[in-house]
């Protein structure tokens, strides 16, 4: 085996090992490739609306969408609901939709709860937590601000104030 050949073989072997290194680092540092990030297209889904028909996320294209994941047991979710409702009322004619996604609860628990808070924006019932898993929701409330093209502009986990919502919503209005 002459020197040139040997160098080539060494380059090939080192190259393969380098690829393995890059792959190993990539897959350990980039933890969860399935997580929805700002800038991604919001994964589509279809859910039954509380006391209503099915709603597809893509049906809301052309509107700014606030996707809010919540549950009746979650105190901060309850606290921020009126603020969301206010924004919805003020801007629904300008192309804003607030969509509350309830995580796995029954209608009999959700319906009185929503009514008592005076919430009028659509509530989707994620009975099997399919969409909650799709968005890999951990902490709630979790809110996704989606623009008219269906792209997630911002994500916030935790309770939001009215000003905060107004500020974020301004960026997604069509």
């Amino acid at each position: 085996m002459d020197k040139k050949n040997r160098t080539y073989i060494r380059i090939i072997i080192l190259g393969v090992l380098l690829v393995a290194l890059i792959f190993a680092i990539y897959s350990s540092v980039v933890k969860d490739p399935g997580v929805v990030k700002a800038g991604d297209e919001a994964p589509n889904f279809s859910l039954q609306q509380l006391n209503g028909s099915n709603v597809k996320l893509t049906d809301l294209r052309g509107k700014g969408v606030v996707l809010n994941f919540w549950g009746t047991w979650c105190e901060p979710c309850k606290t921020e609901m009126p603020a969301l409702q206010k924004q919805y009322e003020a801007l629904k004619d300008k192309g804003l939709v607030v969509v509350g996604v309830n995580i796995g609860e029954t209608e009999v628990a959700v319906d009185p709860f929503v009514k008592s808070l005076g919430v009028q924006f659509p509530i989707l019932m994620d009975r099997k937590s399919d969409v909650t898993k799709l968005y890999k929701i951990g902490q709630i409330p979790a809110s996704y601000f989606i623009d008219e093209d269906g792209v997630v502009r911002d994500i916030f986990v935790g309770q939001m104030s009215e000003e905060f919502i107004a500020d974020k919503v301004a960026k997604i209005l069509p």
Partner: protein
Amino acid sequence: MDDRKCECGHTNPVGTMLCESCGKPLDSRQQLTAETAKEFPDMRYEGMARRSQTYSKTVIDKIWNFFSSVKIAIYLIIITLIASAVGTIFPQQQYIPVPVYTEPEIENFYTSTYGTLGKIYYLLGFHNLYSSWWFVTLLVMIGTSLVICSLDRIIPLYKALNKPRLNQHESFLKGQKIYGSMELQEDKHDLFPRAAEELKKKGYRIYQEGNSLMGEKARFSRWGPYVNHIGLIIFLLGVLLRNLPGFYMNEYVWVREGQTVAISGTPYYIKNEQYTTEYWKEDEMPEKLDLQGGVIPKSYQTDAVLYVNKNKSLPGAEPDLQEVARGPIVVNHPLEYEDLLVYQSGVQEMQLGALNFQLIDTKAGNTPVGSVKLDLFETKPEQQVADGIKVRVLDYYPDFFLDASGKPATKTNVPNNPMFALEITSDKEPVKEKLVYLRGSIITEKQDQRYTLQIVKPDLIDISGLLVRKDKAMPIIYFGAFIVILGLVMGFYWQHRRIWLQRNGDTLHLAAHTNKNWFGIRKEVDHLVEKLELVMLIEQKKK
């Protein structure tokens, strides 16, 4: 004179310790005599030049040389061991009790819990050690070193062993640990054929050329360590492959009896038809145990059905389920479907599933009118109890408590303490009465209501914890592990033995080498000397 040129005329590569052609020790500093034979080169690689010692000119060669060093490999392993140990001093980030993993919160946890050391620990990134880029780099470097060290040694070794050298230089024979010589008084023509025959009986392969004979046995055991390393590399590759999408999945799902749950990340759904814990009966026990009323579980079993969702394009949409597998899942006996394995791995027994009541008409002598079932998970908003009589759910709090403002609320979404507000209406009479169920009692709105509920035994259900696992890399990992064992067995249970017989003029030399078990080869050499009736003193040097 060029160091590399042996007196036999052969030019050896740089780093060669024993001439490739005649076997004479090459280091010019060592003039080998019987007295200085202790300095005879190590036979581990047959005195061949390791490939990386041969040339070191380009960057590629330099990198190659770096990784080809066993010393470097040992340093890498030591550094990795120390780093791994440091990672266990304080808990890793994934185990710390912080509600939301934001950087300030994490930093605050380490600083406030462990003080300055904790802060240093956090700042140096030890809280995410095992997935940090430098730790992964260390692991891959060990892998690289494994590959290159092996290649660097196996190729020259193969070359040396593939063409057994006969007619060795005298000093090669004298340098061997087992060596003996004698003057041949008479011409023994049958010596070599007899020696060959004796060695063959002991399982040796014979190589012969002129006045030189070599018997060799179990050469393959020299490949053991390399086979072992190939196994390790396959094993590591398998572990690495798990990171590829679709290769590895590990999901835990809780499934109530009767419930069908989606397995996230897959198109599959699993249904728990029934869960049972079986206990050892007293007559099954070999001796009488005083269990003080306790019981010993015999088996945990979930009867499960696995479905595939044909309507997987849109999450949340009503699934179109098609059964693909069904059967019992017992601990260590998973339900298998294609490369999916579902293991029994947890249970919560006797959980409230549904509340049951009898609707009582107090105006008709407390006669039961009909039964009411309030499912805690799939609660029907309204149900017909008897002709014209309906029960409607007004409010449902699965885990009831009074919040800070004194209003009813739910603590969790788990029905630990269900509270229902109900309304009973009758078509026939203008009756519209309300009542509340809470903590095993019924509270009516008015004192003298016509209808009330009598509590009967609730439905208790078991919730089964199932572990869904997919591991396509497993066959590769097992294969790698098998190769590792194969290499170990090759290397440990056989020894590469060689016996040389060489006649130079009137002198007969006998030398022997093995890579381990010198006692064994010594016995075979003694046996050979005895059979050939040689008058020879065999010396065994200590090295």
